[in-house]
């Protein structure tokens, strides 16, 4: 730009220094994990910018990241450990010293560990240190650990891993540079925020088509070339309509299917038999296909075998059929014809037919070719990499329905039929994924695994292969407090945090002593049925006078609603005051061309008596004498806290939390000996490490010999076994067979029909459970929530800047529907569900499905929480739809109530909600209802200021 010319005669310094120091670290304003550069002046944060070298955000930063200053200096920050002195929920606390706080926690937890480790339920929320917290829970010995995935995205994770070894977002990304056609399902403003925005900007500049399938047209959907505003929960049917069209036209990638999916594997047809629907396997257990050249069954994975994709074959005394035949029979059925599904999706048949044609055209007429030879895991050599440039992404809107697992699987099926998984222009895996379920652990926590004073012998969360892997007692009762991995939710691979409070309160399946949580606002916006949850947290047993959930320990950096309901508060630091790790053992920051992980380093020192939760957990572990956290002499193994652990902990020999700069001299990646200078190397590189996959290994990773070998070398996989995509998911059939009365592990009677119905090995569609509840006609509208982009996954919209963007919410109502009911813009209405009634303000909208209302989520705050003034709009004009959402489904025969969740994965079904609306009386306008009683501000919290003049000191200094 050249130098600024100051010929105007004004005193203007165009080259001021920004700060006196710059430190890199990782953002934590949401779950994206962008790299940031923090400029400091006089020890204060002058400016936070995106790090251009960083693989996640490449220099950009979102609204949340840029508001980090206000988050860091928030008056809602806790300042000292607190012990409850008043009634739970009142906010009456006394300040205590850390020694006392940790002493108390140790006493409580030690007694539990000696008695029955199950009495500790340890659940972390938006925790980015799950490989530590989970491992800690394992050392403690409780089976009751999980993070927030159960109410977030487990349907995506489970469907992706069980189908193809990786899932949307965390485990893969669209090939933004090459894709020609991009379909996004149910993604509002959410994950993965900066990379999606960057990618959309890129594909729009390139002229690729972007289709957004979403009942609500905001954010990303607003810039789509085509918005498909279908009815909530019907995405699966819409996708099956596309599949129907593609099959009818023969527009599938038959070569890809026969080589890299189980399309050609033979499925036994033996109605009533114990092997019905299982794969035909050879003596060595390997799956068989029908060789169409040699006309006999042959090992499906043998490259010499030419699998038949259709037909029915006699195999000795049995009949077997290729997976593709079964699949085609199902989806060619007229019930999936575009005009038929239109009735439920609200999307006309012509649109489905056209989009199917566009998909086929992009996939098969616009191949992307990379002149790079590669060899597949079966030894076939390929001269070049040929891609089908159709990519897809899906998230919350798919995940948060009770049919989300199957819907997500149907999307993967569509991708696989087009041959667009991990190819140029398609959806691409991010290392360490793909991983097949065989390469992943099974869940741990059965009776034989849990003993006083003993660690759990394996990780809590895992991937069941069949009923034998469930965590249930002999009578089929759940072993975990959240009922994950029970017949209620067999594939609850992220746990079911949303079920913990209800179950603990009921003592179902058993009572607990202590609920220990981190960074999870489970009494408020992360709870279904918020008001009822508050009641359960404060409810006492009339016989003993004790709280039904006897003890609650909570760690948070801020005075969130949940703090008010805890007995002991361990105040956490802000993200700019701590060490942290985005680990390959957990959720790294990889991209499709290479693995990557990162750290947080403290860029400023805490000015309060707070400690990073991870340090506290490690300290607590040593005080409890947990194996793994103490040496043989009983002293702390990681006296240097989390930083010490990051460098010196090894999960397996040579495999630690950080993959970069391993080995004594720091030259190894992935696996290698502990490097005492590892952290310094990370800091010198901007707090991240980034590897690069060899050229011949970049695509078709699941079946690419070079990639699989590379993955073994890096420690991502133990064996270089190809990961063949599972169109037909045999583990599901194993559960179904159990429900039909086969095998040693069968569901109790009351679960049989439900398991049988929902464990179809091919994707099915059924209406969201709420749609089938008796009397649902009284609630004609679907109701959804989403967080605005400026707040997505950001815990703390009390942020002084972000709350100027959003501090109140309205209910968006379709204009046509409202006109019918004489509801106008700005009216106040009562919104009712089978669970409750709230009063809200209306805004009419064109950009929403005609049978759907929606609002911004988590805007509402409890009066007094977050150090906001009790009359803040967050308390008076902002509401939570959560109050309308029951956490349980209605009673079934026998009185049993299932969690309001997906029956396969236990994913919380937030988006199944049905409501009705009626106009409020004129005198009722102005404030939302219900409003929770205000909570007191702990004495240790400073009064919030009336004005912020942040930055003034920088100007003064500039002038000085």
């Amino acid at each position, binding site marked *: *730009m050249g130098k600024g010319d100051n010929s105007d005669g004004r005193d203007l310094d165009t080259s001021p220094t920004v700060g006196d120091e710059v430190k890199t670290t990782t953002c934590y304003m949401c779950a994206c994990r962008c790299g940031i550069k923090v400029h400091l002046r006089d020890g204060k944060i002058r400016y936070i910018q995106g790090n251009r070298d960083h693989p996640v955000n490449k220099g950009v930063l*979102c609204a949340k990241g840029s508001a980090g200053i206000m988050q860091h200096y928030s008056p809602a920050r806790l300042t000292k450990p607190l012990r409850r002195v008043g009634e739970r929920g009142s906010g009456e606390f006394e300040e205590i010293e850390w020694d006392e706080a940790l002493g108390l926690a140790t006493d409580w937890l030690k007694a539990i560990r000696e008695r029955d480790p199950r009495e500790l339920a340890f659940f972390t929320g938006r925790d980015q240190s799950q490989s530590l917290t989970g491992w800690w829970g394992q050392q403690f010995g409780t089976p009751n650990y999980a993070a927030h995935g159960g109410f977030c995205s487990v349907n995506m994770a489970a469907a992706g891993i069980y189908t193809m070894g990786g899932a949307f977002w965390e485990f893969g990304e669209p090939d933004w540079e090459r894709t020609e056609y991009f379909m996004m399902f149910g993604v509002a403003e959410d994950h993965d925020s900066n990379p999606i925005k960057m990618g959309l900007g890129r594909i729009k500049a390139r002229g690729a088509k972007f289709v957004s399938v979403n009942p609500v047209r905001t954010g990303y959907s607003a810039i789509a070339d085509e918005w498909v505003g279908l009815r909530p929960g019907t995405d699966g049917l819409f996708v099956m309509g596309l599949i129907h069209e593609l099959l*009818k036209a023969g527009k599938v990638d038959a070569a890809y299917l026969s080589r890299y999916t189980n399309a050609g594997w033979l499925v036994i047809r033996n109605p009533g038999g114990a092997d019905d629907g299982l794969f035909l396997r050879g003596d060595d257990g390997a799956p068989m296909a029908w060789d169409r050249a040699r006309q006999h069954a042959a090992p499906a994975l043998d490259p010499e075998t030419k699998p038949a994709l259709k037909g029915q074959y006699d195999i000795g005394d049995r009949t077997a059929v290729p997976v593709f035949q079964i699949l085609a029979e199902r989806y060619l059925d007229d019930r999936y014809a575009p005009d038929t599904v239109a009735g439920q999706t609200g999307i006309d048949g012509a649109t489905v037919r056209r989009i199917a044609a566009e998909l086929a055209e992009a996939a098969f007429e616009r191949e992307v070719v990379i002149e790079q030879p590669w060899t597949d895991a079966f030894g076939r050599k390929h001269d070049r990499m040929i891609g089908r440039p159709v990519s897809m992404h899906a998230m919350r809107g798919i995940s948060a329905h009770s049919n989300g697992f199957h819907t997500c699987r149907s999307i993967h099926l569509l991708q696989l039929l087009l041959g667009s998984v991990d190819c140029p222009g398609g959806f691409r895996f991010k290392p360490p994924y793909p991983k097949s379920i065989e390469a992943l652990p099974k869940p741990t926590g059965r009776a034989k695994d849990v003993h006083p004073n003993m660690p759990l012998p394996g990780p809590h969360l895992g991937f069941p292969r069949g009923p034998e892997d469930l965590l249930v007692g002999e009578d089929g009762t759940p072993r975990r407090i959240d009922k994950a991995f029970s017949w209620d939710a067999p594939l609850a691979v992220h746990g079911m945090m949303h079920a913990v409070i209800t179950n603990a309160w009921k003592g179902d399946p058993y009572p607990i002593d202590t609920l220990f949580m981190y960074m999870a606002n489970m009494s408020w916006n992360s709870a279904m049925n918020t008001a009822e949850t508050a009641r359960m947290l404060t409810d006492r047993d009339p016989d003993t006078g004790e709280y039904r959930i006897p003890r609650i320990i909570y760690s948070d950096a801020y005075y969130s609603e949940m703090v008010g309901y805890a007995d002991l508060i361990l105040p956490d630091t802000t993200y700019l005051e701590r060490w942290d790790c985005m680990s390959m053992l957990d959720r790294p920051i990889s991209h499709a061309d290479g693995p990557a992980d990162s750290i947080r380093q403290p860029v400023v020192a805490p000015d309060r008596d707070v400690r990073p939760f991870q340090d506290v957990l490690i300290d607590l572990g040593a005080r409890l004498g947990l194996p793994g956290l103490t040496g043989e002499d009983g002293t702390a193994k990681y006296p240097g806290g989390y930083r010490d652990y990051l460098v010196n902990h090894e999960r397996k020999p040579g495999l630690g939390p950080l993959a970069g700069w391993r080995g004594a001299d720091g030259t190894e990646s992935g696996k290698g000996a502990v490097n005492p200078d590892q952290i310094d190397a990370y800091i010198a590189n901007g707090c991240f490490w980034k590897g690069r996959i060899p050229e011949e290994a970049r695509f078709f990773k699941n079946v690419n010999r070079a990639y699989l070998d590379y993955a073994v070398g890096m420690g991502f996989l133990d064996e270089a076994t190809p990961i063949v995509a599972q169109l037909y998911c045999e583990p599901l059939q194993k559960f179904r067979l159990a429900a039909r009365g086969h095998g040693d592990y069968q569901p109790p009677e009351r679960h049989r029909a439900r398991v049988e119905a929902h464990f179809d090995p091919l994707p099915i569609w059924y209406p969201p459970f709420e749609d089938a509840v008796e009397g649902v006609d009284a609630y004609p509208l679907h109701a959804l929530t989403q967080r605005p982009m400026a707040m997505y996954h950001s815990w703390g919209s009390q942020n002084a800047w972000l709350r100027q963007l959003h501090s109140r919410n309205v209910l968006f109502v379709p204009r046509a529907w409202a006109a019918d009911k004489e509801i106008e813009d700005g009216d106040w209405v009562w919104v009712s569900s089978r669970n409750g009634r709230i009063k809200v303000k209306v805004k009419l909208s064109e950009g929403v499905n005609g049978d759907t209302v929606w609002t911004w989520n988590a805007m509402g705050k409890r009066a007094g929480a977050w150090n906001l003034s009790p009359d*803040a709009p967050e308390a008076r004009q902002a509401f939570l739809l959560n109050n309308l959402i029951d956490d349980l489904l209605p009673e079934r025969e026998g009185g049993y109530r299932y969690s309001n969740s997906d029956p396969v994965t236990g994913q919380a079904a937030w988006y199944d909600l049905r409501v009705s609306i009626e106009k409020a009386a004129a005198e009722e306008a102005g404030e939302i209802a219900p409003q929770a009683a205000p909570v007191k501000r702990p004495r240790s919290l400073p009064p919030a200021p009336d004005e912020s003049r942040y930055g003034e000191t920088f100007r003064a200094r500039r002038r000085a």
Partner: protein
Amino acid sequence: MTSLPKQPSARKLGLVIDLDTCVGCHACVVNCKEWNTGGYPAPLTDQNPYGKDVSGAWLNRVHTFEAGEGADGRTVHFPKSCLHCEEPLCVSVCPTGASYKRNDDGIVLVDEDRCMGCGLCAWACPYGAREMDMGVGVMKKCTLCIDRIYNENLDEADRVPACVSTCPASARHFGDLGDPGSAVSQLVAERGGYDLMPEQGYKPTNKYLPPRPRRDATTAGSRPERLDEARPEGGFLGWVDRLLSAV
């Protein structure tokens, strides 16, 4: 009253904002606030930051609204900041000479030492792009990050306005709109960039790029409308064998 430069500057620095890719995420809004609250116009104060009527000074805002009905409807995210007009009335009306348009690059600035906070400029601006800082009592406005774009203490790549450097969707571009050969001018030419409310006559420098034409049911004409059924030879899934025979 304040005079404008005698000759319009040859260089006309400004922004080009792409309404086709703006998703309304507010990244530009907050990064602007963050840079500027400690930068040239520091501080940008906030009143009642944790209270009932929270407000503050922001130099860039995004307005979201719906336009059109039914199939023609759109959700529009519209970022708005000072457009650095060639003939800015906000400068002409300034009684103290605080508001001025720079000779060299056309940037419109407020010299706070001369500003008495009378607010005339805000009345004059038809775009509502001026912000009275209630805590300081002076007028604030977009400076095009005057303390970044020429800043020799910054990496070359960072010498753009904060909003441009942070925009995740690449919906914001910065450059010399007085140079027809500049990247921004070419972008404006290619995409049909337009002036906001040209009828007001202030000749804004900033340009907006309109949404690209849609490709959906309303424009589907030239695209395939449906797939042909596979030839039935070979019975159910007969096409599979034909596809496989080529493998």
